[in-house]
């Protein structure tokens, strides 16, 4: 199967630090077009293109921009969420390291739509080595008059500042990210007010994922009709998939939305290593559903994955072969959420810890059916009452694995020997 490279078209072909090379491949032409459009026209183009957020939630991008466009005020901000913290995901790192100007261009187009003059890129600390690349790319974009004052002689000013994180998964949540840029602990805010009305520094703010922003320039360069020909009706465009775990060929691949998961694993990634069988797949990172080998004949677009109880999220595909144990994987996921909960709201702080304790109990052969009921009850409570997405999705790997791997839970409850979990016990 051939990749369809739109976002990764310049991967390895240009020097990411030089805007001139980006321009030579048609870069910043979309911005030029957008600069001659009104805000309403830009938003309409994105509505027609049907672009949806690539960070996880799949929210229509034009609506986010519309909120900030409608909000009163002279000062508005554009924020690029480069706090890619979902375990198993590194598409944004690839985009920022191969073609950062495409992301800047997307930000500038959104800025033009809402008349914002300052943008921020919030880069996670784990990617600190990208800072020099991004700084040089920003500087060379300014030299080419594609950022800064009076962009391309249009009279429109927009510049981008870099901000770093310091290691916090929850800062990928938009309001927590604002707090962090403001120099505070990255704890999510209560909503409303929503970021479109009151976001960064209390001003109307448009926040988008790196990949979403990288989609914007191709739309304005080629038109929304072209964009609609790629992907599926409800999820147009391509998607970056990070495939990791126990497959032969791992990596970040770009395919039109709607590619089949089974084909992705077996045809693109070469399937399992010799002598191994597929045990499970987790889509969408640690907060995604875990499905079993019989369920992988699945279309990957935002809605279809949601309908099957999981989420496409940021496009992570973690493949696990039969050397693994599902309970052990779920324990790993929950330990992550327990550690990453910011502690602001009780359901997530206490619920995450309790879920982790319960799964440990089951892994160690001390569990009962009653514990599974408690887990499900707790999961529902967290989903309904947690403050942000972190708490809402903590339980997803547990509840989905209970559904799809019930016999595995029973084996642990029945204290049958598990080569993975028992090794872990020995180590402790």
């Amino acid at each position, binding site marked *: 199967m051939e990749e369809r490279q739109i976002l990764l078209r310049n991967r390895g072909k240009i020097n990411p630090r030089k805007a001139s090379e980006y321009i030579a491949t048609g870069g910043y032409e979309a911005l030029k077009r957008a600069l001659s459009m009104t805000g309403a026209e830009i938003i309409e183009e994105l509505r027609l293109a049907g672009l949806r957020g690539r960070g996880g939630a799949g929210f229509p991008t034009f609506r986010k921009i519309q909120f900030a466009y409608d909000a009163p005020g002279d000062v508005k901000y554009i924020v690029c969420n480069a706090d890619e913290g979902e375990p198993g995901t590194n598409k944004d790192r690839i985009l920022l390291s191969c073609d950062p100007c495409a992301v800047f261009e997307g930000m500038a187009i959104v800025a033009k739509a809402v008349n914002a003059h300052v943008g921020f890129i919030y880069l996670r600390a784990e990617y600190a080595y990208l800072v020099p690349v991004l700084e040089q790319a920003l500087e060379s974009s300014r030299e080419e008059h594609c950022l800064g004052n009076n962009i391309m002689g249009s009279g429109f000013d927009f510049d981008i500042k870099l901000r*770093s994180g*310091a290691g916090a998964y929850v800062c990928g949540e938009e309001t927590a990210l604002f707090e962090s840029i403001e120099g505070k602990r990255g704890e999510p805010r209560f909503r409303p007010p929503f970021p479109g009305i009151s976001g960064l520094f209390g001003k109307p703010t448009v926040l988008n994922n790196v990949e979403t922003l990288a989609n914007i320039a191709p739309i304005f360069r080629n038109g929304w009709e072209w964009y609609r020909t790629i992907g599926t009706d409800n999820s147009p465009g391509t998607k970056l998939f990070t495939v990791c775990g126990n497959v032969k060929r791992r990596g970040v691949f770009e395919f039109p939305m709607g590619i089949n998961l089974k084909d992705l694993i077996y045809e693109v990634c070469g399937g399992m290593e010799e002598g191994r069988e597929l045990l499970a797949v987790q889509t969408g990172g640690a907060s995604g559903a875990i499905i079993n080998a019989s369920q992988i004949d699945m279309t990957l677009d935002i809605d279809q994955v949601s309908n099957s109880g999981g989420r496409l999220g940021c496009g992570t595909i973690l493949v696990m072969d039969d050397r693994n144990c599902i309970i052990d994987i779920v324990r790993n996921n929950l330990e992550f959420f327990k550690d990453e909960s910011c502690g602001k709201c009780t359901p997530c702080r206490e619920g995450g810890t309790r879920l982790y304790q319960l799964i440990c109990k089951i892994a160690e052969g001390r569990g009962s059916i009653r514990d599974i009921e408690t887990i499900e009850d707790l999961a529902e409570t967290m989903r309904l009452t947690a403050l942000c997405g972190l708490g809402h999705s903590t339980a997803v790997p547990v509840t989905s694995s209970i559904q799809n791997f019930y016999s595995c839970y029973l084996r642990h409850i029945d204290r049958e020997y598990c080569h993975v979990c028992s090794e872990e016990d020995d180590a402790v």
Partner: protein
Amino acid sequence: MREEENYSYKTPSSQLVKIAEIASHYKGRPEMLMKVITKVQKIEPAFSASVASVIAREMDIPQTQVYSFVTFYAMLSVKPRGKYVIRMCKSAPCHVRGAKEIVRALEDLLQIKMGETTEDRRFTLEYCPCLGVCEQSPAIMINEKAYVNLTPESVRDIVKRYIRGEV
């Protein structure tokens, strides 16, 4: 070490002078705390009470705000740390590709457990959440450099280069 000593240990005054110089550029700009902290961390791996008080004084913000900030983020620490912080990714993509064996190799080579610092204050071993190099797992990060596709043998070779001072 008692818990309060983890924060109230001494930082050399020569360091504090340098830190004051960094923080003084951002007086009255509390939103720049992250920038100050990241810059300071390059010359001083941990934020003791004296470091926090210098930053607070120079930026004109409460010292508790610095403490509260530092203790929130995984990559910042009030506890003393080694010159090289070796972070082992604890997330599932590394976990399913033999992260445990890498941990054993690291603990064995440095003769400390995860979460500890060597006596000579050169190395700290700790777990961290996903490093974002999942298609090349298992991975570690030593300060700002990521090392990928590790085996117990390759990780020993990498850390030995730090021990010998070749990096």
